[in-house]
């Protein structure tokens, strides 16, 4: 028997443990808690998310009814874009806005307290803006 403290197998194990730890360490270091948010549409009424749908480019057209603060609204979703098709608010700003398809954009109906978002992903790069002045 040699007088070495560790056998070859021990050394390998130790190296494996250290490598694994380094990987775990790096993973924790660089990961953020945010999940990729692209390709979704969030519908909020009264401050709560009431619908969360995928917004893939190949999805078939769909109309859904969402209850806002004062009245229901018909929201239409198709092929990567979304709009308010019908609403009962007096100003109709939400309907007039038409389709949105860019991550980071939103439709807001103030009288009915309804918000439709396309959340901006963390890596949308140059196209995404933090806000739009209008």
């Amino acid at each position, binding site marked *: 028997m040699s007088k070495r*403290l560790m056998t070859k197998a021990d050394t390998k194990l130790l190296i494996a443990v250290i490598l694994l730890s380094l990987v775990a360490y790096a993973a924790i270091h660089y990961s953020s808690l*945010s999940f990729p948010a692209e390709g979704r549409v969030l519908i909020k009424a009264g*401050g709560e998310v009431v619908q969360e749908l995928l917004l893939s480019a190949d999805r078939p057209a769909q109309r859904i009814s969402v209850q806002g603060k004062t009245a229901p609204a018909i929201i239409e979703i198709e092929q990567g874009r979304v709009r308010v098709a019908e609403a009962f608010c007096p100003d109709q700003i939400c309907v007039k806005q038409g*389709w949105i398809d860019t991550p980071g954009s939103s439709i807001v109906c103030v009288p009915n307290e309804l918000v439709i978002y396309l959340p901006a992903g963390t890596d949308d790069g140059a196209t995404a803006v*933090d*806000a*739009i*002045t209008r």
Partner: protein
Amino acid sequence: MEKNRVRIAFCFLVLVSLLGGVLFQLNRPREQEYSGEEFLMDTLVSISTYGTDTTLLRQATAEAFREMRRLADLTDRFTDGNNSGMTSDIVRINAMAGIEPVIVDRDVFRMLQLAKEYYALTDGAFDITIGPVMDLWGFGKPEQTLPAADDLWEALSLVDSNDLILNEKEQSAFLKRKGMSLDLGAVAKGYAVEKAAQILEEAGIERAIINAGGNIRVIGQKAPQQGWQVGIQDPRDPQALVGILSLQNESAVTSGDYQRYKEIAGKRYHHLLSARTGYPVESMMSVTVVTKDSGEADLLSTALFLMEPEQALAYLSQHKNAEAILITAEKQILCTPGLKEKLKLTPGEEYVDEQKVNDKG
């Protein structure tokens, strides 16, 4: 046996130190986002704050919203839209028009002072006593009729900021003639956003963005060496941007003819009314103002919108604290030279970008 003990001790030591490292990483203070949103002042207000202390972010955001809610309640023009059930200072001033002065909140007094300053600075183009004319048009109401000419003239005769008497010592406001009324639509939102930003800054928050329906105020930078990216809405295509601003510790506010309007007999009438004619001013499609103070940006974007483009550019060349992007009715984009560093224009083909012309001049 001795060898095995050493070996076990060694492995134990390695594992403990690795575990320690991982725990240290997990506990490392990490940049968090804390956001909130509320419907206030006829728009959706969202505040997003960033920092390592979540409690601080949450408390400061709540306090900022509380202050905005307070200002919204104080400046609301219609009692039925008021959440708190109290009568707003503006409703009281309007009700006491021609009767007696009303003592108002300090912030309301400051807003009225600012509005009068801009009335003077813009030679009367901007006038917060436009209330009677706004009521006649009834924006946001479904009726689709033009105001009658006689009614319009009568309402216009009640529009005059010189008859808004402010007493600084008493902190009171008085509309001299019965029937006069204030409309703080171009003042209150920007002022409230600025107060909210100050609350966040005083709480020690170094990165935040406030968006009150397109009235933007940013704190700090988005990331080291990178400003907050704020798009400028294309006034004719809700899907498009005419440019992107890169902002830090400043505000961008836009007044446009495309946000609040009503269509009567196929023609659009927007809500930015001339205090002289009582009709919408049609020389520009939108004006975006960039300044440090969101309250000023809000006032100025409306005031500039109500001017002729040449007059607006002349004003801007004399007042260097504000930068602006004007989109005229002829689809010309005019920018002040000071924006060169922070603005990237990306207009559609129908627009004429006149930035170069301005740089020379």
